[in-house]
Each structure stands twice: as C-alpha cells, then as structure tokens.
C-alpha cells in the first residue's frame, strides 16, 4: 500500500512537471509569435487534477510487474491509451483545446510527455542498476 501511494505521488509529480514544461514551451513559442500570454484561473488546478488522474493507470503497470511479463506489451499499450483518454477527456473539460488544431497539438504534447516520463523513469532504473552492480562487487560469492 505504502509503495503504491509512493509510486502514485512520484508519477503525479513527474507528470505535472512535464505538463508545465510542455505548457511553458507552447507559451514561449506563442510569445515569440507576438501572441499575448493568457492563462485561465483553472489551468493550474487542472494540471494538478490531470496529473493525479494520469498516475492512476500506473497501478496497472504495478500489477503487471507481478506477472511473468508475457503480456507486458499489451499492458503498456493499454496504459498509453488509458492515460491518453484521461488527458484528452480532462483537457476537453478544462478547455485545453477548443479546435481540432489544438486537439492535435495537445495530443502531440501528450505523446512527448508520455515518452519523456518513461525516459526519466528508465534513467532512475539505470541508476538503480549501476548502484546495485557496484554493491554486488563486494558481496557476491567466488565461484
């Protein structure tokens, strides 16, 4: 239970950070194009809500990690689609996009953020791998 909550908090924080990065880039490009900066009052809270909701499908990944791994590809695809549905559903509700063009932009930002989250997560995993292998050097039996 404790580890599940920890994973959800980690995922939410990472997703919120990357959404902010996405919005920052989008707004910076609009600023360069001479468009004024404009942020509705509900955008920050919508980021928090979407971050928390988007982290919930990670429970699927946790569950999958307890299996033999034979269905991992399907779990990942299901996870990708579930998070996409949550983001676009919430995005529609919070008016992140109102035209088809912005629907496409939002989808593209989602794909970038999704893979960025995985990339960062894998970096953490690689760090674990390196630390464990170093520690094993002085621990393992000689055979």
């Amino acid at each position: 239970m404790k580890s599940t909550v920890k994973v959800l908090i980690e995922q939410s924080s990472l997703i919120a950070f990357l959404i902010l990065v996405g919005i920052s880039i989008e707004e910076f490009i609009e600023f360069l194009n001479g468009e004024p900066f404009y942020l509705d009052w509900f955008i920050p809270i919508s980021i928090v809500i979407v971050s928390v909701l988007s982290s919930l499908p990670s429970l699927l990944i946790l569950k999958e990690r307890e299996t033999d791994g034979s269905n991992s590809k399907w779990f990942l695809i299901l996870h990708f689609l579930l998070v996409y549905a949550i983001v676009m559903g919430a995005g529609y509700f919070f008016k992140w996009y109102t035209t088809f063009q912005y629907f496409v932009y939002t989808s593209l930002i989602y794909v970038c953020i999704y893979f960025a989250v995985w990339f960062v997560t894998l970096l953490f995993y690689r760090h674990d791998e390196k630390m464990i292998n170093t520690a094993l050097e002085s621990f393992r039996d000689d055979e």
Partner: protein
Amino acid sequence: MKVTVNKIPEGSQENAVINAVNIDDNISAAVSLLENGERTLVGYRDGDKFLIKEPAVYYAEAVDEKCFVYTKDSCYELKQKLYELEAILDFRFVRVSKSMVLNIKKIKSVKTAENARMNAALLNGEQVVISRSYVKDLKKRLGL
C-alpha cells in the same frame, strides 16, 4: 520438542543428544547445523531425501503451490511453503518477486529489461526476474 541446554566446564567435549520418535526434516536440519555449523534444508528429488547447505542455494521458487530450491545445477522440492522458508533463511536471501526468494551472493549482475523489470544474471548462468516493486528491498539488503 523440549530442549535442554546444560553448561559444561571449559575444555570439555561439547555434544548434543536428541531423543526423537522419528527423524523428521527439522531434526535432520538441526543435526546438520550442529555437526557442520551450517544451516541446511531438507529437499527431495526422485523420491530421495537430500540435505542442502543453505549457502549453496541460489534461489527458492513457488510453482503451483509447491516450493523448490535451486542450487548451482540441481533442483529440489521442499515440504515448506515459500513464506515459511523465507522466514527461516538468513540475511543472504531476499524476496525478489511474489514467487521467488533469491540468494544475493549468487547474483553476478543485474540489468534493467525493456519492460522496466530487472533481470538478474546468476553465477551459474541462469537469469531470473526481479520485480520492480522488490528492488527497494534488494537495495536495502545491500546497504544502499
């Protein structure tokens, strides 16, 4: 079983006497521990009984409600459940998935797999999977 320990003068020959109706697995393991100073497990293969030295165990795995221990090149069935075994194994052993307890002294290296799991290469060339949710237990055991 009632256990009596008598203190004897220094320099005397230490000895143990076990009075038992049957020599079961627990008694066999106790005898081995007293004789060799190493904990042993009682395993079965092809109907024969074997005493397996605990440090020689690579990992223990639960398969279809049965518990098996694997050494460098052999496999034995145990009478215990995996959780019972885990409770008696020493500091070398750590739970790495719902169905496996691994001897960390037998891990050659670990590597992150594509599906975000962690694969462990063992000293005998075997590969086993460490579930991501148990990695923190492994790190803790290694003092990280």
